[in-house]
Each structure stands twice: as structure tokens, then as C-alpha cells.
């Protein structure tokens, strides 16, 4: 039994676990799928939005910068075309022109210079003393001489300060000359420096060699990463104006970059931002979603656990009840088969015993004859015959009890009045009660509804209870009160005697089959267990209250709901 209980425990634990897992799986899977799908979609569209935003930003600034450079170039070309080499070679005139330009555009133009074909700066206007400087070996000079307009990379040059040059080539009397202007680095820097988004987004410009053309906001190493490749590829395929990509920085920080070629591919405008910063809004909503998901998960698991435990508890209870019921059924079946066996034996024994008793009686009769009157052993004969009669009676008691236990009581359900059924059974016992000197009092309610059940069964119960009471009071007499009433929809029938009572130690066992306190051969111990079985079958209960020396009361309680006559069309059925 203990082993099977342990197995049952494992079974219920497994059941609980399976239910928890199933509920959790079924609830969480769609939740996660839906959330994941939405998050993915949201992520995709958010990324598109960010990319579009950054692309627009970079495109706009690329245009700004390109325009800026073109305009500066146009300004210088205008100057070179409007005035002759001679006019501009005059330093004071050049000074005036620089002042005019600075008036118009602010401190963008740092200085102006006129360089002849040999690379000699013949005139210079500006804050540095660069007059007569020789540029014949400078990179910008050589390249400017080849094309008619040129914008240099940022370099330190002769003055030792970062700057870049805008130069145009013109011809004067067959000889080329160059008008060059220096663009203020700070002014140019401003163009990209104010591209700032979030905490880590910034822009910078790289030249073909991966050198900074502007002052980057953060220290980065442009030689690494994709920028050089971009510069090279953009050089050949200029049709992609803006490219977006991702790269992992030195400390494993992921960055998003947006790059666009400038100056016909010579320069590259790069915007760079940490991914976490660029997608901070998305990550915030991701965090909120995760918290919600986690809370949902906890709620689901808790609910699943509690629900499963409660359900398994109910199942276990139902199983226990079923088990108990099964045991009861088995017990009843056992009793029935014991009873059938006993009935067979009792029937077979009864008749021979009856014959034996009769024969003994006949011998007793014969002993009355004169021939035996003086027999020496007459007394012994009498005693022996008496003994036979006594033992015959004992057999009779046993077989009668066994038969009444085993006998198939009439189980036909019929409608009848309770008080009448009780009166009938009391009348049957009246003779015995008189012999035992017991007065029977009836206290029957006449208002009870008609009931539908097996009258024989109910009477069997009452007869057993009455017989027990009469047995108990056989010696000193007493009174027996039988009452019936309705109490809150429950039919109550009480059989109360004022006999010697049942000791408390026996009270718990009196309904057990074969339990008896009567002397050996007097009782079978089946009467009360029959009563118990019948009352339980009717859906009722039988209780006993007993005090030694005061008396015993048996109370039968049957819910009227279960036994009330259905078709009470003709009232309470007179």
C-alpha cells in the first residue's frame, strides 16, 4: 500500500509537471512568436528609418560641402577671369580683392596668391609672409598646372598650419598662371563639425589616403575599417552616392557609418555613430518589451503551476474517492459472496438440525413412558436430550442470521408511507417485546412525504435495530422508542433504547461485519453491517450514540431528495 502510494505521488508529480509544461509551452510560444515577429518588423522599419534619416543627412551635407567647394572655386575663377595677371600681380590690388572676398564671405578666405608658370608666387595677400615663395615642387602646383581648377587636400604647407588650397589656372599672353586661395580650416571644419546626433554621432572627411580633412570629434583610426576600401571602390564606381555599413570598433563597439564621396571621389564624407546610440529608441522599446515578456512569463508559469496543482489535487481527491468506493464495492461483493456461501450451507444444515431436534424431542416424549420412569440413567438421558435441544437452537440461531444476511432482500422500489412501514415492522416484533418486558413507544411524524425505495430493505434495517435493542434489554426490560421526522430535508429515523449501552471501545467497530459482543453462538455480527450497507446504498448515513448505563440511540439519516416519491400528484398520498 505504501509503495503504491509512493508511485501515486510520482504519478501526480509527473502529471503536474506535464500540465505545467504544456500550459506554459502553449501560452508562451505564441506570445514569443508574436512579440518576436513584431519586434523584428519594428526593428526592420526602425532601421530603415534611421538609415533613411542618416542618408538624407549625409546627402544634404555632401551637397553643402560640394557646393561650398564649387562656390569657392567659382569665386576664385571669377576673380582670375575678371582681372588680368598683371593687375593681380600688384600686391595692394590683391590685398583689396582679399578684403572684398572676406567682406562677402567672412573669414573663409585666408589669403590669395598669384603664382607664375615657374611656380613662383609673384604676389601674395594675407597674414603670412609668403611673397616670392616657390611652389614649383608642391604637389598642388603640379596638379593645378595640369587641370585648370584644383582643390587640394588639407596639408600643413609652408606656414605649418592645416589648410587647403583652391587654385585656378589662367593664361596670360600664352603663359599659364595660377590664382590660389587658402581656405580657412576652421571655417571649413564648421561645415561638418555641427553634424552631431545623439551622443556618439559625428562626421568627418577623409582624403584618398585616409587622412583627415576635418578635425574628427573622436579619436578614431581611419586607416582601419572600411573607409579606405570605400574610397577606392567609390573612385571607380561613382554611381553610389551614399553607402551605409557597420563595423566593429577597437573595443568591440559596433558602429554604423554612412559615407558619401566628395570632390568627385577624392574625399569621403563619413558619418559614424555607435549602433547602440543610433538605435537607442529601439533598444529602449526592446527593453520594455523584454520586461513585459518576462513578467508575462512569470505570470504564466505561476498560473500554470497553481492551476495544475489545484487540478491535480482535485484529480487525486477524485482518485482517492474512487479508490475508496472501489474498496467498498469489493467489500460489498465479498460480503455478498460470503453470504451466498453461508446461505447454501445454512439451508442444508437447517433441515437436518430440525430433524435431529425433533428426534431428540421424540425420545424425550418416550422417556415419559412407564418403562423408563425408573431407569437408573433417566436423569442423564434428560440432560443429554436437553443439551441436544439447546445446541439445536444454537444452530438455528446461526443459520437464521446467516440466511437473513445472505437472503436477497426484495429490492423492488415502491412508493409507501414511512410511518406505516415502521408500524408494520413494530407489530412483527410486538410479541418478542412483550416477552422481554419492553414497552415500545412510537413517535412517528405523519407529515412525512411518501418515499420511493425498497420497503423490504428499510424494514430489514429497522428489524435488525429493533432486534438488537430487544436483545440488549432482554434481561432487565426497558423501553424502546422509535421516532421519525424530517429535519432540513433529511429523513431521520431513530431507534432509542434505555438498555445497558455500548462501551466506547466497541462503538467504532459495531458496523464491521462479524463483529459481535454476544456470547459465542448468539450472534453472527452481521446485523448492523447489513443495516449499514442498506442505508449507505440509499445514500444515507447511520449513526450511533451510546452511553453505558443510559442507553443507545441509532439514527438513520437519508436525504429525502434521494428517496422522495416523484409523482406527488395526489398530494401526500393518503
Amino acid at each position, binding site marked *: 500500500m505504501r509503495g503504491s502510494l509512493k508511485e501515486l505521488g510520482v504519478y501526480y508529480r509527473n502529471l503536474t509537471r506535464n500540465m505545467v509544461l504544456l500550459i506554459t509551452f502553449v501560452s508562451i510560444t505564441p506570445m514569443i512568436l508574436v512579440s518576436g515577429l513584431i519586434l523584428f518588423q519594428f526593428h526592420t522599419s526602425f532601421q530603415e528609418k534611421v538609415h533613411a534619416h542618416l542618408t538624407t543627412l549625409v546627402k544634404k551635407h555632401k551637397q553643402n560641402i560640394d557646393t561650398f567647394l564649387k562656390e569657392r572655386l567659382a569665386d576664385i575663377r571669377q576673380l582670375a577671369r575678371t582681372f588680368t595677371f598683371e593687375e593681380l600681380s600688384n600686391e595692394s590690388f590683391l590685398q583689396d580683392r582679399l578684403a572684398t572676398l572676406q567682406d562677402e564671405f567672412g573669414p573663409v578666405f585666408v589669403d590669395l596668391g598669384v603664382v607664375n608658370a615657374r611656380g613662383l608666387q609673384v604676389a601674395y595677400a594675407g597674414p603670412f609672409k609668403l611673397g616670392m615663395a616657390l611652389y614649383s615642387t608642391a604637389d598642388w602646383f603640379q596638379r593645378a598646372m595640369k587641370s585648370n581648377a584644383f582643390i587640394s587636400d588639407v596639408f600643413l604647407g609652408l606656414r605649418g598650419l592645416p589648410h587647403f588650397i583652391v587654385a585656378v589656372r589662367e593664361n596670360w599672353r600664352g603663359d599659364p598662371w595660377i590664382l590660389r586661395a587658402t581656405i580657412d580650416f576652421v571655417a571649413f571644419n564648421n561645415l561638418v563639425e555641427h553634424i552631431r546626433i545623439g551622443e556618439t554621432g559625428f562626421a568627418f572627411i577623409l582624403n584618398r589616403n585616409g587622412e583627415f580633412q576635418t578635425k574628427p570629434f573622436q579619436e578614431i583610426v581611419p586607416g582601419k575599417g572600411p573607409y579606405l576600401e570605400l574610397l577606392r571602390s567609390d573612385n571607380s564606381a561613382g554611381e553610389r552616392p551614399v553607402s551605409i555599413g557597420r563595423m566593429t570598433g577597437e573595443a568591440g563597439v559596433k558602429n554604423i557609418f554612412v559615407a558619401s564621396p566628395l570632390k568627385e571621389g577624392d574625399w569621403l564624407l563619413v558619418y559614424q555613430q555607435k549602433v547602440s546610440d543610433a538605435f537607442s529608441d529601439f533598444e529602449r522599446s526592446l527593453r520594455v518589451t523584454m520586461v513585459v515578456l518576462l513578467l508575462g512569463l512569470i505570470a504564466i508559469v505561476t498560473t500554470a503551476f497553481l492551476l495544475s496543482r489545484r487540478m491535480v489535487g482535485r484529480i487525486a481527491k477524485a482518485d482517492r474517492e474512487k479508490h475508496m468506493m472501489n474498496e467498498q464495492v469489493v467489500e460489498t461483493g465479498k460480503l455478498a459472496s460470503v453470504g451466498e456461501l453461508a446461505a447454501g450451507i445454512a439451508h442444508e444444515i437447517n433441515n437436518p438440525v*430440525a*430433524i435431529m431436534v*425433533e428426534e431428540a*424431542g421424540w425420545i424425550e416424549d418416550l422417556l415419559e413412558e412407564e418403562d423408563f420412569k425408573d431407569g437408573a440413567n433417566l436423569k442423564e438421558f434428560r440432560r443429554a436430550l436437553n443439551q441436544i435441544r439447546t445446541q439445536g437452537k444454537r444452530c*438455528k440461531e446461526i443459520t437464521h442470521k446467516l440466511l*437473513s444476511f445472505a437472503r436477497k432482500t426484495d429490492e423492488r422500489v415502491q412508493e409507501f408511507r414511512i410511518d406505516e412501514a415502521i408500524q408494520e415492522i413494530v407489530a412483527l416484533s410486538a410479541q418478542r417485546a412483550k416477552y422481554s418486558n419492553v414497552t415500545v413507544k412510537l413517535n412517528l411524524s405523519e407529515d412525512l412525504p411518501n418515499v420511493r425505495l425498497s420497503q423490504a430493505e428499510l424494514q430489514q434495517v429497522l428489524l435488525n435495530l429493533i432486534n438488537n435493542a430487544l436483545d440488549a434489554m432482554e434481561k432487565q426490560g426497558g423501553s424502546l422508542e422509535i421516532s421519525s421526522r424530517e429535519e432540513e430535508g433529511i429523513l431521520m429515523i431513530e431507534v432509542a433504547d434505555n438498555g445497558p449501552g455500548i462501551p466506547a471501545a466497541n462503538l467504532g467497530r459495531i458496523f464491521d461485519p462479524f463483529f459481535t459482543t454476544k456470547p459465542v453462538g448468539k450472534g453472527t455480527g452481521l446485523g448492523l453491517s447489513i443495516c449499514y450497507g442498506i442505508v449507505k446504498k440509499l445514500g444515507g448515513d447511520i449513526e450511533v450514540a451510546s452511553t453505558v448505563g443510559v442507553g443507545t440511540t441509532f439514527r438513520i439519516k437519508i436525504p429525502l431528495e434521494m428517496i422522495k416519491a416523484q409523482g406527488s400528484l395526489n398530494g401526500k398520498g393518503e
Partner: protein
Amino acid sequence: MDSFKALFVDDEVEFLDTLVKRMKRRNIQATGVGSAEEALSFIETNPVDVVVLDVKMPGMDGIEALREIKRRHPLTEVIMLTGHANVEVAIQGMELGAFDYLMKPMDIDELIYKLQDAYKKKYVHEDKIRRMTRGDK
């Protein structure tokens, strides 16, 4: 009214024989027959005062025999002998007009008392009828 006729009906011949012997010894004109059918034909030719009837018999059982006897000879009293305390049979028998019922094996004295009571009842009954019919003449 000291001596009366009684018929004992039981399929157990040994039981029946001894019982009849003991009854005769007690000055009762007892006869025994082995079945309900025999009993009915016996009563036709030899009217009896009291019939002691075993309930459980092969062929016609005690309850049927009781019904038949009461129908043909309403004045004849019947005492039922049952094998065990069968409430339904007892109640049914009483309803059909049996005088009383006893459980086998019974005490001889108890049976004698019942027989005498039954005969007394029958005698009183018959006496009443006799006087009524005489009064009519």
C-alpha cells in the same frame, strides 16, 4: 374442544414423521403429507382444523397453498413454518390470512400453544356461525 385435527405439510419426510408422532402423543389428531398438492386433496376428503404449512417446498409452495386453502376452506386456520426469518414471506403470509408463523426448528411447546390458539380461534368462529345458523332456523 380438547382434541382437534391437524395436518402437517412438509417435504422432509423424516421431520414430518417424528413431528406427527409427537403430536399424536400430545393428543392431537395429526396427519402428515409430503406436498401442498397432497394436502389440498387430503383436506377435500378429511376436513381439518389447523394446517401447519412449510413455506419452502418443491412444486406448489407454502404461500400458494395457503392462498388455495383459505379460498376453499376459509375457516381452516393455517400456521406457517419458515426456514428462516424472512420478513416478506411472513408479512405476506399474515396478509393472506395465516394465523401465525414459526421458524424451523421450532420449540415443540411453542408449536402446541400456537396450534391450540389457532384451534380456539377456529372453534369460536365456528361456534358463532353455528349459533347464527341455528338462530335462523
